[in-house]
């Protein structure tokens, strides 16, 4: 039996990889563009799902995404740097600035972190918009598409594969981190801060490491965003985008820290596209859907599917629970 399911599992995986690789040839440029956006949003969702594992919901993911995009844009236009060189710099800038800010917020616990995040989201957006150096509210543009040797990433297909590369890097790193020793400490913190600190885990330091890693990947996603949008506008990186990122994670299923954000982003990118409703009603419908999902599928689409699918197809990752959920069962007397 066991070998049988193993083969099926491998087969499913192979078919999935083949479909993902062949997608740009099966669809038109518009749909490919949608897939590129889905990957971008999926990567943002991954960063959110990553910090939620230490019990910290971040409402500033779009802001750090913007930091990455702006770093790349500024370095490419003002310092004439190559796209690839700006990637690590963007990550480091995002981590360094994040460190200064989170030194204040993280020791104060989840609630302050959460509110701080919202304020940061607004403050960073204001910074990009009102400082002339960043190009003002009109934003800043880059002209050059990234290239390796003769391969220029300027068409939709090339960008799709570039996005796959970024996404794959994200997934591998997150997976490795979760499986590592530090990942186990993060899980402990996510389950109970009190318990974790009682077994000697330095909660503040571990949370800081987690958030800064998330910051790094957010900035990287920002650089990738510059590669296909070629323009950074402050309005893109507002609080509403951070909220959307959270929606992806919740719709996908907050307990599925790798697959959940991707599924959520896919659903929220494509479903409105095919619903063909007037733009004014789109956000209302999305909001209603989110309310319904939280009430009726509190574990997200994946949680709902895995309750029905065969266990080998989607293995639940039980180490993440929704933040602040209380299991207050009094002791029996």
């Amino acid at each position, binding site marked *: 039996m066991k070998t049988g399911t193993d083969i099926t599992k491998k087969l499913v995986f192979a078919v999935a990889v083949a479909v993902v690789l062949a997608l740009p040839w099966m669809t038109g440029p518009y749909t490919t563009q949608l897939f590129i956006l889905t990957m971008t949003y999926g990567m943002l969702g991954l960063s959110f799902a990553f910090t939620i594992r230490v019990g910290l919901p971040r409402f500033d993911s779009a802001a750090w995404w913007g930091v990455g995009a702006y770093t790349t844009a500024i370095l490419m236009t003002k310092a004439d740097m190559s796209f690839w060189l700006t990637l690590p710099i963007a990550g480091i800038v995002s981590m360094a600035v994040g460190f200064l800010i989170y030194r204040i917020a993280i020791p104060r616990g989840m609630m302050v972190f959460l*509110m701080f995040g919202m304020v940061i989201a607004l403050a960073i957006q204001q910074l990009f918009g009102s400082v002339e150096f960043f190009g003002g509210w009109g934003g800043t543009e880059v002209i050059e598409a990234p290239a390796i040797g003769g391969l220029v990433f300027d068409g939709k297909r090339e960008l799709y594969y570039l996005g796959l590369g970024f996404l794959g890097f994200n997934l591998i790193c997150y997976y490795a981190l979760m499986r590592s020793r530090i990942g186990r400490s993060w899980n402990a913190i996510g389950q109970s801060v009190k318990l974790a600190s009682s077994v000697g885990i330095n909660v503040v330091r571990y949370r800081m490491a987690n958030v800064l890693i998330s910051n790094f990947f957010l900035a990287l996603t920002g650089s990738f965003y510059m590669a296909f949008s070629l323009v950074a506008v402050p309005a893109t990186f507002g609080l509403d985008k951070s909220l959307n990122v959270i929606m992806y994670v919740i719709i996908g299923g907050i307990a599925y820290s790798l697959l959940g954000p991707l599924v959520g982003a896919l659903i929220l990118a494509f479903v409105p596209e095919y619903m063909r409703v007037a733009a004014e009603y789109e956000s*209302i419908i999305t909001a209603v859907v989110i*309310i319904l999902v939280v009430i009726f599928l509190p574990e997200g689409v994946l949680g709902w599917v895995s309750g029905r699918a065969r266990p080998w197809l989607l293995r639940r990752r039980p180490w993440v629970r929704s*933040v602040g959920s*209380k299991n207050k069962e009094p002791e029996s007397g």
Partner: protein
Amino acid sequence: MDLSLFPQILLNGLMIGGIYALIASGFTLILGVIQVFNFAQGQFYMLGAFIAIAVVTNLGLPYPVAIIVALLATAILGALLYFAVIQWTTRSGFFNTMLVTVAFGTIVAQTAMLSFGSREAVLPPVVPGTLSLGGVTIPNGKLVVIAGAVVVMAALHFFMKTRIGVSMLAASENRDVASLQGINPKRVFWITMAVGCGLCGVAGALVAPVLAASGTMGSTIFIKALLVVLVGGTGSMSGALLAAFVVGIAESFAFHFVGHLGLLVIFVLVAILIFFRPGGLLGKPLPVPGE
């Protein structure tokens, strides 16, 4: 520095401080009693402003009536938010409930924009003219806002001393024991939502004759109300009140001197404050849900 502008800036600060006080205390009340992070708070503020404008300009009713209509409408909507949504999601955790308030806020904001239009709107001044005080001219409209905010805060203070108000505090401290006294927790919760959201509606109605109302006014003010809560100490009503005026006045001066960067200046100041005083101005601990 032009000293003659000083009283004007101070007055502006007091005015926005009063508005922050209403929104932040509504937020703190809901967070403290129901343990819900109500993200829709800012949208109720926007709704209050638009309702007041509609009542005055479309129905031709006097402004005080408009304030009461705005209060009732937002309070009812707040109670509806509890009955339709929050009571079903509190079981699945703090974070899910918070997201649902985000979604509800979006619905409110979008519906308001569709029905009131997305252009900016403003009421004609209610009490036109100015007041001259020792060579300083003060527009009456701003005084009305400050007076209104003070009256509402006083009313809230007395409300919290009544049987219902005390039962809200009791339920926030120990839900089980409160129900052993015959207090229906659900009833307390929806009343808290109604009061907390109604406070925002009143705030919106109060500023309608002074500031232009727009579809985006809600989200910005909410973030600033969060700043106020951070400065005042999470969960402290009196702290929020004090912080509201401190932030309001500081913001007013900062905007006067550095324009749009004012918000960044305020943010840095708040960050420094929280670094040195984790519990906010009044130095209270943080009784917060989660963790």
